[in-house]
C-alpha cells in the first residue's frame, strides 16, 4: 500500500490494498461492501438467519471419503484420489459440467474458489470461512449445505449415493457442526432408499445443530410414491422440517436443448422444485401429513405465483384427479416455507405482489446462498421499500427462528 499526495485538506488518499478481487482474495475483503451495510441499514438490530449457504466440501474430500463405512467402497474411492490426477476432489461425486460454468468464466471468482489464506490451526478451514462470511454480512446463524453433494440425486449408482451421503453427513456432524453453535444444517437424505433415509433420520435426528432434513431436488423421483411415506411420517412425528434444495442439470430433455448456462440455470433450478411441488400438492401430501413443514430452497420466488395460479386453474376443472384436496392448491402453497434467494427484483411491482401471494411475512426466510455467483446480501431484504419493519424482521430471521426453534 502506498500513500499518495493529497491537497485541499483531505486527510488521506491511499491505494486500495486489493486492486482486483481474485480466487485468492480474503472473504472479508470481497464482502467489505456488505459489511458497510450493517451500519448503513442497522443490521445489527436484526436477528439474521441465513437459511441457505454453502461450504466447499471438495476441499475436504479426502477426509469425507475416510468416513465411507464400507471398506471396499472406501478403498475404491481413495484409490481414485491417489491414482487419477484429476479425481483428488471428485472421486465418487457426480460433478456435472455446468457447475464449472457458474463463475461466468472468471468474472465471479468467489464462485470458483475461496482460495484465501487461512492460518493453520486446530480449527477447520471451512469453519473459518463460514465465520468470515457470517460476520461480514451481519448474519447471526447460518444453515450450511454442501455443494457438489447436491448433485448426488442424479448419480448413476444408488449404493454409492447412500454411502457417500452417510459419509458426508458423518463428516459434517463430527468435524464442523459441533464446533460452532451459529452453524446449523438440514442434512441430505439418500431419498431413493427409504430404509436408508429412515436410518439417517434416526442417526442424526437429535444431533445438535441438525434442524431438519433435505432432499436434493435434481432427481427422477415422484415424491408422492408410497415408498416415501414412511420418511414423511417419521419427520412429521419428530417435528422436523423437510426441505427441497434445488440444483441445476444440463442433461434432461428440456435443458439438453439449451446452449448457454444462463438458460440452464434459469430453468432447471426452478423446474426441479416445480415438479416436486406439483406431485406434493396434487397427491394431497399436505392433507396426509398436515404437521410436516416443507421448505423450498434456492429456486427464487417468481415461480410460486405461477404455480399457485396454474394449479388452481387446473384443479377446479379436474377435482377428481386430486381427490384428497379440500382447498385450492394455492392455499396449501401459502402454508409452505420458502427461502428468498435468488430474489428476482427487476420488476418491483411484481416482486411486491409475489411477497403478498406467498404470505412472505410468515413464510419467507432470508437466504444468502453465499458463496455462489448469484448470492444475496441481507440488504436485499432490509432495503425493500414495500416491507414494514416487522416483515423485514420476520423474513431476515424470526420466521427461521420459529420454524427451526433457534
Amino acid at each position, binding site marked *: 500500500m502506498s500513500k*499518495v499526495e*493529497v*491537497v485541499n485538506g483531505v486527510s488521506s*488518499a491511499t491505494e486500495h490494498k*486489493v*486492486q*482486483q478481487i481474485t480466487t485468492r482474495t480474503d472473504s472479508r475483503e470481497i464482502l467489505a461492501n456488505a459489511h458497510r451495510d450493517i451500519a448503513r441499514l442497522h443490521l445489527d438490530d436484526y436477528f439474521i438467519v441465513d437459511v441457505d449457504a454453502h461450504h466447499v466440501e471438495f476441499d475436504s474430500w479426502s477426509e469425507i471419503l475416510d468416513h465411507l463405512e464400507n471398506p471396499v467402497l472406501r478403498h475404491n474411492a481413495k484409490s481414485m484420489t491417489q491414482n487419477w490426477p484429476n479425481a483428488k476432489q471428485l472421486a465418487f461425486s457426480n460433478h456435472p459440467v455446468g457447475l464449472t460454468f457458474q463463475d461466468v468464466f472468471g468474472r*465471479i471468482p468467489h464462485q470458483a474458489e475461496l482460495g484465501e489464506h487461512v492460518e493453520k490451526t486446530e480449527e477447520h478451514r471451512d469453519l473459518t470461512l463460514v465465520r468470515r462470511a457470517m460476520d461480514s454480512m451481519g448474519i447471526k446463524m447460518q444453515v450450511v449445505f454442501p455443494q457438489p453433494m447436491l448433485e448426488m440425486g442424479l448419480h448413476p449408482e444408488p449404493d454409492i449415493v447412500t454411502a457417500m451421503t452417510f459419509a458426508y453427513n458423518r463428516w459434517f456432524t463430527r468435524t464442523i457442526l459441533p464446533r460452532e453453535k451459529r452453524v446449523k444444517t438440514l442434512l441430505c437424505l439418500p431419498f431413493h432408499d427409504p430404509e436408508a433415509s429412515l436410518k439417517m433420520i434416526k442417526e442424526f435426528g437429535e444431533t445438535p445443530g441438525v434442524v431438519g432434513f433435505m432432499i436434493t431436488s435434481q432427481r427422477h423421483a415422484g415424491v408422492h410414491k408410497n415408498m416415501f411415506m414412511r420418511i414423511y411420517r417419521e419427520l412429521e412425528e419428530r417435528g422436523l422440517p423437510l426441505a427441497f434444495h434445488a440444483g441445476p442439470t444440463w442433461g434432461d430433455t428440456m435443458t439438453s436443448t439449451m446452449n448457454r448456462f444462463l438458460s440452464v440455470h434459469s430453468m432447471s433450478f426452478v423446474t426441479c422444485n416445480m415438479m416436486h411441488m406439483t406431485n406434493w400438492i396434487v397427491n394431497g401430501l399436505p392433507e396426509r401429513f398436515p404437521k410436516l413443514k416443507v421448505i423450498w430452497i434456492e429456486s427464487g420466488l417468481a415461480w410460486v405465483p405461477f404455480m399457485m395460479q396454474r394449479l388452481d386453474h387446473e384443479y377446479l376443472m379436474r377435482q377428481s384427479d386430486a381427490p384428497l384436496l379440500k382447498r385450492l392448491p394455492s392455499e396449501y402453497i401459502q402454508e409452505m416455507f420458502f427461502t428468498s434467494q435468488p430474489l428476482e427484483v427487476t420488476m418491483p411491482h411484481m416482486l411486491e405482489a409475489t411477497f403478498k401471494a406467498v404470505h412472505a411475512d410468515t413464510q419467507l426466510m432470508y437466504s444468502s446462498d453465499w458463496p455462489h455467483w448469484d*448470492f444475496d446480501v441481507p440488504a436485499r431484504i432490509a432495503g425493500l421499500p414495500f416491507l414494514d419493519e416487522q416483515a423485514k424482521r420476520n423474513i431476515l430471521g424470526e420466521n427461521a427462528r420459529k420454524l427451526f426453534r433457534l
Partner: protein
Amino acid sequence: MPATSQKVFVGAGERVPEGGRLVVDIGEITIGIFRVDGNLYAYLNRCAHQRGPVCQGKIIPRVTEVIDSGGESHGFAFDETHLHIVCPWHGFEYDIKTGAHPGRRSARLIPVTVEEAADGIYVTV
C-alpha cells in the same frame, strides 16, 4: 459524499495504464479510476445491483455474437472497442466509457469527476 466537494491529487498519470485501473481510498470512499483510449474514467466502487465492489472486478472486452446476413450465428467474439468492468460479486458488466450496463442502461455506475493535469490525476469527491 461530503457536503462540499474537494479536489484530491491521486498520483502520476502512469499509475493508471491504458486498459488498466487504480483503486484508491479517499476517507471512507473507494474509487476506481480507469483509462480507455487514453481517457480517464472514475466511478464509486459500488455496483448498481447490490453495491458490490465493482471497480475491483475483471476488465474484459464486451462479448458479442457474430451473426451473418442470413441470421445464422458464427459464435462469440470480443469487441475490443468496448471495454467492460465486471462486478466480482455477481457479474454485472458496465461499459467503462459510459458506466452503463449494456442491456439495461438505467443500471449505471456512479461517476466521479476525474481530470489529468500536467502533474498527474485529480478526482473531485
